[in-house]
């Protein structure tokens, strides 16, 4: 069994190698290869899952050491995999959703001449992501961590001829790099603290270390999580990342990669448990982001950007939950999984809509599509209900639990967090309803694109609809399934641990509250977009709206605070290097030259001048000899 784990990573990696190095001769069947291999890894995952279920609760974890990677002095890093329940959850999510999206992409990327490479990148991503969740030490995790970053870079910038895409890709990578620095520093701290950075020893001995160290490690890990999971303050890249093809947005920027931060924090639970300050920071980040993302989501007219905002906000929920400590870990992961289903579904739906509308992304130019693409409408609708937490659907179960846990945090802190979570739920309901209404309801507001093609929407091919349907099913039932006598809780508890906080409110009360705010959100959206017709061009909107359209000025801030000064700095340094550092050297040379030029004048070629110097010289010599004799 252990060897299968390695295979899990190897299979998609092989696919990536094949497709990227294969050359043109694979163009015809590249996408099939990619899909099959993704499916194969899913099958392997399933086999492992079955095997794991077969074993007792506490010896479910598997471990396989492949080879010793970096042995230098006390620094020993192995390529070794660890498959416990947590990893398993991710493996299934990644390979499952991944496979679906491979299938979807076959149809979606049909007309792209670089489809083979696209599938190669997708496989590369799968491999990296699996490596991330299967690694048994932080350094190997770091490899996967940057690997997914690379894949995301390649896929966001897949349409490289678009400068906007290239820029977005670069931005994503660099913002992520900032987070990665956090991770690497955390690893160094672990090494200096524990002498190792393998999960098991570090986490078991976490509470022996001084709290200061642990807090530092925790904060660094949080920084990493912020980078990867697009949390404030490193969230700015996610919106632009929507430049990538929609399947990418669905797989990487909704379902899997962006949730890596949650995985990291949950995995490092022991450290955070022992470092309350770090936990507080995590919670704060989560709460802020879930509101931030939600607000941004409300203002965007670009359907994908709106969904991106929502992703941000949902991950905010997860981070919040993860920050709550043992109360929340399980629910964080649970929400992560359900979110994986419905958000992927939503994105695929959006993709199918764009596919139908000649890649038009502005929702104000949609409208009334439900008649034209029923399947998309239904799947999208189910996803919508799931995300707003409609009773019974996945989102309901997971999100409700998180809000509960937030309150259960206790004290004013609990109230604040709970309130934030509730408010977030309301806004979620609002903007998702908005998306729904703008896209599928109301009268049609289509306009011909530049070439004058009047879009005539049609249902997408089955290769696209089937994944959507599957995901819709998932987003309807997953949550319920998990919650049947706390199956999911029991499943994860051995890894993450769990504790029931003392909630000031009963679960029922929280649920009721959630329902109320949900209703309010939907109603507001209906009032604004459902009743009256929607203008094609966005109204100027309030100050907040405009700010939100600009991602709450995040980019402007970065530009003013970082980019501009950076540019000036580099320009200045280039000048300094040329003029100063080089100038000093050249200056010395020049001065020497000048001096010698002056000395050269002494050699005027007149014999008599030389004679005089000889004369003087002899005089000096005599003087010297006399002096010598005198002394």
């Amino acid at each position: 069994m252990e060897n299968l784990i390695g295979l899990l990573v190897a299979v998609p990696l092989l696919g990536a190698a094949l497709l990227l190095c294969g050359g043109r001769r694979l163009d015809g069947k590249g996408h099939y290869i990619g899909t099959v291999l993704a499916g194969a890894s899913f099958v392997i995952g399933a086999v492992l899952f079955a095997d794991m279920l077969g074993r007792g609760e506490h010896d479910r974890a598997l471990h396989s050491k492949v080879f010793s990677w970096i042995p230098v002095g006390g620094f020993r890093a192995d390529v070794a995999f660890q498959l416990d329940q947590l990893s398993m959850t991710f493996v299934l999510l990644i390979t499952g959703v991944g496979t679906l999206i491979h299938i979807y992409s076959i149809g979606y990327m049909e007309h792209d001449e670089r489809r083979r490479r696209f599938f190669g990148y997708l496989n590369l991503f799968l491999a990296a992501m699996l490596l991330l969740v299967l690694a048994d030490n932080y350094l190997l995790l770091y490899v996967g961590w940057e690997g997914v970053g690379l894949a995301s870079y390649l896929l966001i910038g897949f349409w490289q001829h678009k400068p906007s895409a290239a820029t977005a890709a670069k931005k994503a990578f660099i913002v992520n790099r900032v987070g990665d620095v956090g991770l690497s520093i955390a690893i160094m701290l672990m090494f200096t603290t524990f002498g190792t950075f393998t999960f098991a020893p570090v986490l078991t001995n976490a509470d022996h270390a001084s709290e200061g160290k642990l807090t530092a490690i925790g904060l660094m890990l949080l920084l990493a999580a912020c980078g990867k999971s697009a949390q404030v303050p490193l969230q700015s890249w996610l919106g632009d990342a929507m430049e990538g093809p929609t399947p990418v947005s669905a797989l990487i920027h909704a379902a899997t990669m962006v949730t890596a931060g949650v995985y990291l924090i949950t995995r490092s639970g022991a450290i955070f448990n022992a470092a309350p300050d770090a936990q507080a920071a995590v919670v704060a980040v989560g709460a802020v982001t879930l509101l931030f993302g939600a607000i941004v989501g409300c203002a965007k007219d670009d359907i994908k950007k709106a969904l991106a905002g929502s992703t941000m906000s949902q991950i905010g929920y997860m981070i919040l939950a993860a920050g709550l400590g043992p109360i929340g870990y399980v629910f964080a992961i649970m929400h992560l999984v359900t979110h994986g289903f419905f958000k992927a579904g939503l994105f695929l739906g959006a993709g199918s809509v764009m596919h139908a509308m000649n890649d038009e992304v502005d929702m104000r130019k949609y409208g009334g599509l439900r008649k034209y693409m029923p399947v998309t409408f239904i799947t999208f609708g189910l996803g919508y209900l799931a995300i707003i937490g409609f009773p019974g659907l996945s989102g309901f179960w997971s999100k409700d639990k998180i809000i509960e846990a937030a309150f259960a945090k206790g004290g004013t802190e609990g109230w604040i967090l709970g309130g934030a979570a509730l408010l977030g739920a309301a806004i979620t309901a609002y903007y998702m309803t908005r998306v729904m209404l703008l896209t599928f309801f109301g009268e049609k507001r289509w306009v011909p694109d530049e070439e004058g093609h009047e879009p005539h929407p049609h249902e997408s091919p089955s290769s696209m609809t089937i994944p959507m349907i599957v995901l819709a099913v998932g987003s309807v039932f997953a949550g319920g399934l998990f919650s049947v006598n706390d199956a999911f809780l029991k499943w994860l508890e051995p890894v993450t641990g769990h504790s029931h906080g003392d909630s000031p409110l009963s679960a029922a009360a929280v649920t009721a509250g959630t329902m109320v705010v949900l209703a309010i959100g939907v109603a507001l959206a209906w009032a604004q977009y459902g009743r009256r017709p929607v203008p094609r061009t966005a109204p100027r909107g309030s100050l907040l709206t405009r700010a939100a359209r600009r991602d709450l000025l995040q980019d402007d801030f970065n530009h003013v605070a970082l980019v501009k000064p950076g540019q000036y700095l580099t320009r200045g340094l280039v000048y300094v290097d040329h003029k100063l550092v080089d100038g000093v050297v050249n200056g010395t040379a020049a001065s020497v030259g000048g001096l010698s030029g002056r000395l050269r004048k002494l050699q005027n070629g007149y014999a008599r001048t030389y004679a005089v110097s000889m004369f003087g010289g002899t005089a000096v010599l005599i003087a010297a000899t006399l002096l010598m004799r005198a002394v």
Partner: protein
Amino acid sequence: MSFPLLTATAVVPALGAVATAAMPAAQRAAAKWVALGFSLVTLALAAVMLVRFDPGGARFQLTESHAWIKDFGVRYELGVDGIAVALIALTAVLIPFIILAGWHDADPLESARPNRRWRPTQGFFALILMVEAMVVISFEATDVFLFYIFFEAMLIPMYFLIGGFGDRAGGRSEEETATQRSYAAVKFLLYNLAGGLIMLAAVVGLYAVTADQLGTGTFSLQEIVQARAGGRLDMASGTERLLFLGFFFAFAVKAPLWPLHTWLPNAMGESTAPVAVLITAVVDKVGTFAMLRFCLQLFPEASKWATPAIMILALISIIYGALLAIGQRDIKRLIAYASISHFGFIILGIFAMTTQGQGGATLYMVNHGVSTAALMLVAGFLITRRGSRLIADYGGVQKVAPVLAGTFLIGGLATLSLPGLAPFISEFLVLVGTFSRYPAFGVIATVGIVLAALYVLILYQRTMTGPVKAEVRSMPDLRVRELVVVAPLIALLIFLGVYPKPLADIVNPAVDHTMSVVDKKDPKPDHPVTDAGWFSYSPKSEGASHDGASGGAK
């Protein structure tokens, strides 16, 4: 007396140089093949050396020792430790690729009709081989004087390579190119010569000290180290520091360390891509290598004394180089500044005085050599296609020449030390090594990582992505020869990134020895984990979590 493998490894390329230079002007192609052949033989010899070298064995192996100048105790003393073997292997591997990449760089222009005397092609390849010979022997020399001679002699062929075979793709007038080139060559020569002469003074001083204390003066590294260990030789700290600075200055110029770096961008910018690789990937390594072998082992006390200052300079190099790389408009200068940043990392690792730091630094030398070679050579192919070094002249190449762009990207990713590629390991080791002794320095150094991503990706975006520029529309993709050059390098990058153990195993003992000479121990972790092995982890919720928890782990 067994077969003098080390001498052979150095002599073969030298012979190759002679043979190549001796080829008549007409047989230009033949000369190229001769050069390539000899470089491959050298590679084979290096491989034999790698096999016969026993990591667990003596400190210096395959040693050869003959009296040379008796009156001054100069000996012809060769010997390799793990570090040297690794670097010799690097050199031997890179040279064939350099030759292959520069296949057409020295062909006479159409305008210049070749006559009997005029044969630049032969000269070009002969010089490259000559450089290889000198580099190899200075990696092998364990006699300070012997090392010094070749350390300096290296400048001569390099000077001609830079000044004589400039980058034709200047996009400038012939005269201006020529003036720029000679400026670069002279600058290179003067900087390194200045360093070398100061070092010569130090070498003589060393002799004086040993002669004074041991009775008979010696240049032999081993003797001196043993004498130090045996307490027969202890220099006055003042003297030791002066000598150390004398040596270090030369190596810092070669390495190049801020603020002695300005010769590198000119040299790399003006010379052809293969020569630029030769400079940064092979020749400069002698500097960092010598820091490890001579500075640290001859003058351990002084090294410790100078560490803080040097580490600060290294930090400046890292960040300064990266920032300037971001600010460059010229592809090759950008890579040059990137190299300066990387050399900063290497020096940081060396003087962190930890196993990880120095091991990382050594791996870094190898990895940086390979990665820069990959990136620079591809950049060279790109430049020869378009005939311009300015980044602004490119755009959308990725669409026209995907393979070229792909290899370029991989080279770039290696330069920004992406995990999975070789440089990541060395860079991370250096960082960890530094961090474990000087946390603040380690953290500052990580800024370099972000900046690296910045300059590499900016370069890639501006040249490869975006709408296709008219000038690059007809750009051909990589040819077979070029693929043969690039593919193995990339393969090597990936292999060393995934499975660096063999290399690390060769290097580690040498590093440990260096550490023992400097007598520094790795700092111990605060809470060492008793059992670092793997065992199932179950959360102890009660103990860990601060709020009352009912752990399920029962």
